[in-house]
């Protein structure tokens, strides 16, 4: 029973993290239909920027957090401007491969600067965040993960619903030519969505780094875990991504706990194939109707 509850809580926390990671991914896909293979590297880069600011520059933690979010926001802009904009209107495979190339470049850069070792953040979370439920202890990181997940979810929900930029982004996602003819600056929307996605990615990278330590290979592997999540949720639904992330997180921890730890990393992909065969547009995705 305790084991079950512990797995449940772990699963939910991991699910929330996947959900956070998936949110940035869905944002890019929603506005520009780009499948971003460099998402894991964006997570890792955010985590490394935070690490450098905290340990090397010795900034206080909240300042470092805000500065690294700002840094990745700008980085997102730069990536869009330099690499993605020349490809607007090119076939799918070029855009996919460009993000793959970008992922390799970012990975190489990070290995060059920080090396392949595992880093750990200094302990900065207060101990009172620990949740003690009798036999089960929830460490403060998980509480923070769930809390940040909820905060960002609310912020983005409000952003998409009420802010003008959010409405522009939704309109571009819905129908690009129509949005353009109504005066929406589509290129600016693309740039903004990359910037916001980079920001969200770096935030989830930081939280993941607090939990598992920071390592280029581990964090970029999370970027690939996002795929089963977004497919299950429907590629263009942020709420769906969160729910799907919880399902995938639980699936992973329960497989790891009850069946075999080595199967843990593959089970989301096996599940993914089944979803694709049964409901390719996911739980909440838009069903595409195609005409010649």
């Amino acid at each position: 029973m305790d084991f079950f509850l512990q797995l449940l809580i772990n699963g939910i926390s991991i699910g929330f993290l996947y959900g956070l990671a998936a949110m940035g991914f869905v944002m890019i896909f929603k506005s520009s239909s780009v499948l971003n293979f460099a998402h894991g590297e964006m997570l890792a880069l955010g985590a490394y920027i935070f690490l450098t600011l905290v340990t090397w520059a010795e900034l206080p933690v909240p300042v470092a957090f805000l500065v690294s979010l700002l840094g990745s926001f700008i980085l997102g802009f730069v990536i869009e401007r330099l690499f993605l904009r020349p490809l607007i209107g090119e076939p799918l495979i070029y855009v996919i491969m460009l993000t793959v190339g970008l992922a390799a470049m970012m990975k190489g850069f990070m290995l060059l600067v920080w090396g392949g070792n595992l880093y750990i953040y200094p302990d900065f979370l207060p101990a009172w965040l620990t949740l003690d439920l009798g036999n089960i202890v929830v460490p403060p990181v998980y509480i923070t993960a769930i809390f940040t997940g909820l905060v960002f979810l609310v912020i983005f929900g409000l952003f998409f619903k009420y802010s003008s930029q959010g409405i522009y982004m939704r309109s571009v996602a819905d129908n690009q030519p129509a949005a353009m003819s109504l005066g929406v600056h589509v290129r600016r929307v693309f740039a903004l969505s990359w910037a916001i996605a980079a920001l969200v990615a770096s935030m989830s990278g930081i939280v993941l780094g607090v939990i598992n330590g920071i390592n280029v290979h581990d964090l970029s592997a999370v970027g690939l875990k996002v795929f089963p999540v977004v497919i299950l949720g429907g590629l263009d639904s942020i709420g769906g991504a969160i729910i799907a992330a919880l399902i995938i997180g639980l699936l992973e921890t329960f497989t790891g706990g009850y069946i075999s730890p080595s199967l843990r990393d593959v089970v989301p992909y096996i599940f993914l194939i089944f979803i694709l065969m049964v409901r390719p547009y996911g739980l909440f995705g838009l069903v595409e109707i195609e005409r010649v």
Partner: protein
Amino acid sequence: MKIKRPVFHPCGNYFENYKDELKIFETDFGRICTAAGLVLFFILAPWLCGPYTIYVLNLIAITSIAALGLNILIGFTGQISLGHGAFFGVGAYAAAILATDYHFPFLAAVISAGFVTAFVGMVFGLPSGRLKGLYLTIATLAGQFIIEYVLIHWESLTKGTMGIVLPPPSIFGFTLDGDVKYFFASYIFLIAMVLIAVNIMRTRYGRAFIAIRDNDRAAEGMGIPIFRYKILSFGISSFYAGLAGGLWAFYMTSISAEPFTLALSVEYIAMVIIGGLGSISGSIFGAVFITSLNEGLRWITDFLMNAGILEGIELTLAPLRELAFGGAIVLFIIFEPRGIAEVWRIIRSSFRLWPFSY
């Protein structure tokens, strides 16, 4: 009136029937040059090159075969697969298991490895019946991870992380020991596979693949059973990957599951894109480019290490390689999306049109 076949390129298209248009070589000059070039290559390369160069040439031949297969799938049929590295691994393991446990001879083992992989590829191509575009790409990504997991964890068959040691290859009692003898084997395989690919693309199957790539709904409307052809394309592509994997396993003499990761799949897609999508010669250009890039970077870092310039600095091969590899992909996509094949075409036509090139 029968027009005599020109020796050089005519200054326009003067085809009188479809048969002329389907010819591989438009002129006798091209045919003779290709044949002479191949003969010269077979005579000169083993004579001029040292063992290391021969080793790189062999790797190029093997990767060219795999890249050719991927180009049939991506460049001609338009189905993006991220599982080619895993299929290559399936081929390598199939050849290794057939050669050790069932004592297949070299040729039989390599070719049956191709067929085994073709079957696996068709199974993982099944989602293409319902999916296309991005969704299919993600399904093949899942296939890559599942195959990788099976290769590592099905220990009774694949020996897990211990790996398998293969017997030395031999054809009809003639042992292929050493790089030079393997050089002939691998290039004969490459030429055969190129010929097969070129000829598939000239038949109704090739035209159906291209129709599916350009517009699958319209292709279906014209009476092409697209599901069957997509599966066939997956099968052919994986056959190439499996054959290349088998050749690679025999060449390396021992294999384990480590190399067949997503990174390898990405490397193959990079070859196809850098070489040129939908171009047979492009696959070979891409394989030459990526393999030489890998080996060149290895050589440079070794040289710098030995010269003692980098002592104290923690510079290993991996980050430099990743940077250069990613940079090559990004630069090619932004500046020459049609790849080296297009550059080659431009160079050739500017020679042909000299002095009036434009």
